[in-house]
């Protein structure tokens, strides 16, 4: 299938998250390139949705800035196209299912393939419904990246067994946001996943400092950092790209030590 799984093979992966068109087209292109150039192994790009139920206030605000800039699905594709002129970093989309559904699954996946998008993270598409998108995505060489939560319980094995690309591990209860403590169930959950699949596990939700990243990278195959990155972009100053670069490097270093 895609090469997503390979990325994790010899290192802990760093996967920063950026909202497309926040606060404008060019910044997002720059941010993708900056992150790619400073250690991002995969860039996760959020396609804004009017009603992001799985996101916390930081990302909701980013969505609002993007809408103010006039974002829509085609604009997001254009951003990727522009970024692709400067970087080949693997890119995955995070979006809500209705965005893909309304675009047309086939057309959406075709567009993703054309732009060399590696995977899709869709928080409101659980295992029970994933058959409606997975076959089409796979046809277009796109991984449908499943989410697993500490609350998943008996569902863990079922989900892990059919995963491709990597597994998006939700590290704490609740929506995205910067948190200081993490679920103790985390290690156990990952152990359960590892028993049934060799698909890598990246941890998301709540990672803020290099120290946290380091700690989590020790038990998982990669870290996904959303709100902390989006907060830097939100500052929107002349230094933003530099701050982004510094932050990315600090994370990359922290997780590289343990690799």
């Amino acid at each position: 299938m895609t090469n997503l799984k390979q990325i994790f093979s010899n290192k802990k992966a760093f996967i920063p998250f950026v909202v497309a068109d926040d606060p404008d087209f060019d910044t997002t292109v720059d941010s993708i390139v900056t992150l790619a150039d400073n250690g991002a192994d995969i860039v996760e790009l959020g396609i804004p949705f009017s009603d992001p139920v799985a996101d916390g206030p930081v990302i909701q605000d980013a969505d609002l800035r993007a809408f103010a800039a006039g974002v829509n699905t085609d604009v997001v594709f254009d951003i990727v196209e522009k970024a692709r002129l400067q970087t080949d970093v693997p890119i995955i989309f995070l979006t809500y299912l209705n965005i893909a559904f309304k675009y047309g699954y086939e057309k959406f996946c075709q567009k993703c393939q054309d732009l060399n998008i590696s995977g899709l993270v869709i928080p409101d598409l659980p295992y029970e419904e994933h058959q409606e998108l997975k076959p089409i995505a796979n046809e277009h060489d796109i991984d449908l990246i499943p989410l697993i939560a500490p609350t998943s319980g008996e569902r863990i094995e079922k989900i892990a067994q059919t995963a491709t690309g990597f597994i998006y591990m939700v590290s704490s209860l609740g929506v995205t946001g910067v948190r200081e403590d993490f679920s103790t169930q985390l290690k156990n959950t990952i152990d359960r996943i590892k028993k049934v699949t060799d698909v890598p596990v990246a941890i998301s939700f709540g990672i803020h400092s290099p120290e946290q990243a380091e700690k989590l990278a020790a038990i998982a195959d990669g870290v996904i950092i959303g709100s902390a990155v989006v907060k830097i972009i939100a500052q929107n100053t002349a230094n933003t790209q530099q701050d982004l670069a510094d932050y990315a490097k600090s994370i990359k270093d922290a997780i590289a030590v343990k690799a």
Partner: protein
Amino acid sequence: MKEMEKETTESRHYGEFGGQYIPETLMAELDRVAQAYDHYKNDPDFLKELHDLLNNYANRPSLLYYAKQMTEDLGGAKIYLKREDLNHTGAHKINNVIGQALLAKRMGKTRLIAETGAGQHGVATATIADLFNMDCEIFMGKEDTERQKLNVYRMELLGAKVHPVTTGSMVLKDAVNATLQEWTQRIDDTFYVMGSAVGPYPFPEMVHDFQSVISKESKQQILEAEGKLPDMVVACVGGGSNAIGSFANYIDDKDVQLVGCEAAGKGVDTDQTAATIERGSVGIFHGMKSMFLQNKYGQIDKVYSISAGLDYPGVGPEHAHLAELKRAKYVGITDDEAVNAFEYIAKTEGIVAAIESCHAVAYVEKIAPKMRKDQIIICTLSGRGDKDVASIAKYRGVNIDD
């Protein structure tokens, strides 16, 4: 509760609609709810307590009232009104809330959360939380809390904590988002009491079942009164709970026409509308595949209706399915038509009905004169209109501020 067993088989989807499009964090809990419901819906003890509460707390059965004045005035079909407005708390919402809260209690939950638009469902949930001695937190768009300060106070009076939601457009759909998020963060002791026949499975099924008491009663009542089934059943549709409850026991009776009345706001063809089935398209939102008002990229629209209870961009999946099958028909009723109906039923029958319900009444006004005198319409009055008198006065330019 026989109809429950029958109606719920294979109802995770309704044709292509329904499903469980919800974050993984909630899926295991949703499964537990579904399993618990599957069990309790056939548990005699549960059903006994449910019926006892419906009868002795919610004040059921509700009247099936022959609207003689309206019938004579309109000069066509015989009009019966199913009087959910006479329930305790003044609307059909209580039927569903009692059911879900009872399930929550059986599941060992001690805390109820719910979204609310104008406050009706929030008040109903807060009410039952009192009865069951449970904690209650209500999520309400900040804009709605400001428009409906009285209902906020009412919920607080009932002991509920009301959270103003400041995300998005700060209205009903954002309140649903916030309640889902709250649930995500605290599932152990908490049950999300869904306010309409929407959301992921098993909510549409549960709400269908708990509200189907409306048509279970009306069928028995009309057979007693007229010795035959109605020719048409009419109900308003917001998320679709009172409508599905009004339709449920007639769905297999193919000769009974089913009509759902959506809020067309300023007109189905304007931007200021909430006529989901007529104007919307298939989408996936709030846990379900159904019809939604949305733009071509799938972003959910802001919607509008004079009626806070119908002001929702989606509709329950079973309605989307009934519409597709053409088993039920869905029509848009404008603000103007609804307000006229509000005044009409007040003057003819002495009933101040909820502006939501008046969308159904407006359709009856149009269709009854075209029907034969030996035909029968049952129209559900989903709630009472005391809450609406002030806004109708405003709509008519009458100043009623103290």
